[in-house]
């Protein structure tokens, strides 16, 4: 018997979410959306628990998690930064903005700062092309960014 | 909310609701409607322009004249307030001065509906308002 440990809280949350979808394996993507919404990410033991509740192979759950870019197994920073690299942003210099974020925070794309405050990701088009180039920090959208604005934007999150 | 049970009910509901969007619907194609611009600067309001505008809106509706009412700033005829500009499709715009409820009715019934002259026309000294 191999045991997978999970906090009682988390396990209950997962059970509730799965149950709200009738524990149907066809609902796994909806379940994962909600579970990630609660925990911020989908570590292995959480996927194990989801697989167990929905009675499906955990390999299949992981197959799904690793397929869709929305799902992540890495916890993000407290203020997750997403830089849009959609075409509209790209041709208006989004790469330079991304580089500046990386330089300021000294982390790569996909990385988290050591203090867990920021993380950087790229995404494809948030649909705010009029404001290109665009970055999101948490739910807040920053438009018409230039590299020299990056420092000020980050300063908003100083504690 | 109560359920809509047939197409007829839906249409009736639309009739009822349409008023609320009237203003927007009409401004989509103002050139095909009678456009009434009411000068609503301080002097106009003081002279009762607001009340006249409301009266005129009701009257137009009663006469079933498709009108679009807009308010505008001072037209420069402070001596003749309240003043309104009326533009009927296919005719040159006219500006009327000293418009009260009676004259408003007259403008709609005589000038707009039957193209009869109405008193109070102020000679136009500009091309288009609000350019």
């Amino acid at each position: 018997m191999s045991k997978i440990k999970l906090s009682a809280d988390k396990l209950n949350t997962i059970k509730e979410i799965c149950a709200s979808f009738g524990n149907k394996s066809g609902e796994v993507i909806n379940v994962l959306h909600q579970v990630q919404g609660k925990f911020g990410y989908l570590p292995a033991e959480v996927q194990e628990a989801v697989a167990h509740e929905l009675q499906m192979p955990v390999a299949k759950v992981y197959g799904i998690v690793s397929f869709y870019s929305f799902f992540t197994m890495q916890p993000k920073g407290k203020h997750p930064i997403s830089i849009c690299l959609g075409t509209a942003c790209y041709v208006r210099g989004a790469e330079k903005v991304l580089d500046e974020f990386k330089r300021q925070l000294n982390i790569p794309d996909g990385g988290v700062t050591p203090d867990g405050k920021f993380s950087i990701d790229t995404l494809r088009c948030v649909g705010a092309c009029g404001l290109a180039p665009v970055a999101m920090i948490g739910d807040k959208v920053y438009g018409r960014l230039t590299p020299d604005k990056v420092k000020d934007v980050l300063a908003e999150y100083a504690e | 909310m109560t359920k809509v049970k047939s197409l007829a009910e839906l249409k009736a509901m639309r009739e009822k609701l349409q008023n609320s969007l009237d203003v927007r619907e009409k401004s989509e194609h103002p050139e095909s409607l009678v456009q009434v611009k009411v000068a609503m600067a301080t002097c106009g309001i003081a002279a009762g322009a607001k009340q006249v505008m409301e009266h005129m809106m009701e009257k137009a509706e009663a006469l079933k004249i498709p009108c679009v009412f807009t308010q505008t700033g001072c037209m420069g005829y402070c001596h003749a307030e309240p003043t309104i500009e009326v533009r009927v499709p296919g005719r040159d715009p006219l500006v009327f001065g000293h418009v009260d409820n009676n004259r408003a009715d007259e403008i709609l019934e005589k000038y707009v509906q039957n193209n009869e002259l109405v008193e109070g026309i102020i000679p136009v000294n500009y091309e288009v308002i609000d350019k």
Partner: protein
Amino acid sequence: MVKLTIDNKPVEVAEGTTILKAARQAGINIPTLCYFELAGMKFENKPGGCRVCVVEVEGRRNLAPACATDVMEGMVVHTNSPRVINARRTVVELILSDHPNDCLQCEKSGDCELQALAVKLGIREIPFKGEQSTYKTDTTLSVYRDMNKCVMCRRCETMCNKIQSAGALSGVNRGFQAVVSPAFEQPLGESSCINCGQCVQVCPVGALTLVDNIGDVMKALADPKKTVVVQTAPAVRVALGEEFGMEPGTIVTGNMAAALRRMGFDYVFDTDWSADLTIMEEGTELLHRVGKVLNGEKAVLPQFTSCCPAWIAFAEKNFPDLLDNLSTAKSPQQMFGAACKNYFAQKIGVKREDMVVVSVMPCLAKKSEVARDEFKVNGDPDVNFSISTRELAHMIKQFNIDINDLPEENFDSPLGESTGAAVIFGATGGVMEAALRTAYEVQTKKTLPRIDFEEVRGLDGVKTATIDFEGLPVKVAVCYGLANARAMMEEVRGGNPRGFHFIEVMACPGGCIGGAGQPYHHGNSDIIRKRMEATYREDAGKPIRKSHENPDIIAIYKEYYGEPCSHLSHEQLHTTYFDRSKKIEAE
């Protein structure tokens, strides 16, 4: 019927036929890679992913995958136009551009479908240089994975999920990083893998191969202090010949025994002997359980067979609540090991630790079974090494032996004599039939009116029958493919509504003859069918066809074990099972 033209040949085929099959009927062999079918056995892998089988269809904008495109009336197909050949070559070049060029050392060399394609297309260089996958290799006791060789045909994934319902493998990641893997890309050994090895059997390349134990066996053979004993499983003898160019279904029992002797094994025994022993133990156990129920006592029914280690692992991982339904009888391989290292070692005066027992199996799961702690005494395993039919063939070739030239020889005594009942263990339904032959006669004390139980034979995935034991209707079921077994277990969990008494489960398609350690069948189910026919032919030719009539079996009970399910046999020939399921626990 649909009429079409393929490479200017008029062809007429049934509606719903694919271009690939239509072309085959016309004698045109369109190359494939990901496509895989075991005709008549409900296994088809048709993702249309590799794009090797593309053909030109007149009037169509792009090329069509022949494996998955149905024929249409009046279709004009070209399988060898310059456009098709260029596309096919480029696709193979692309696959090779992310594939290690280590054919010389690859276990699959000579049996590799990608290699064969490259040869056929005359690939001399790979124009595309670029990033190559760098996955860590990984191994269980049975299966070796080198995903750098994976071509994403998904056959293993289909096998693991659809046929075996083991759910160990899934396509993971996407794009260039897409690969088939266990969850979290963890080692296969930590997954729900049950080591059936069918992924290896269907892998077209060297991404999934067996764990090679030839070296261990060679070392034992070279050690003068060791007495090396070999046992060969029933299904090996009907398949080994294929590795030496013989027709599928050729029986090479005698040549094989001769080869093993030439290679230096001290005793050449037969797992068929212990298969007869298994029937005695397992059949007796069944009769005990049924007897108890008939007496109004409690007993767990139905009883499931326990010969197949992949099935046992599957039950332990997925149905911990139903482990009491499994027969406690060890598998024939392990019964042999126990009898050999206890009874036989004692008999010839060899110390247990100086004896090396090697098994030759059609199976890769057996490699994991020999390592189970229950099958060890003070750390010394009853069976030291298990090699597959393919490894045996490699060894024979290394020894420079051509089994075609060898005389037919007999197995050694006393663990070499067997009956027809043991021979048929190799085919799905065989264990059931063997058990019925004995159980009927033991229970009814009468001779069977007919010895062939046709109702449990054949390549259907699930077979059921009711056998009349002189007024006692015995309900049996036979299945292969663990997805079928899963359905059976769920039915039993739900109260066994059909009232089965005895259920045979084998993991591999067609039973052990389709085992993962057998020569690669490359999707040709006729090969499995021919092995099955050979199995029943061998049975029919045997002078004794019921396990309880095997004189050596009768002798060992008289001399050593006393009677079936005696105290000593329980100690040596029975085992216990463990809950190996995954549990999610709250902290």
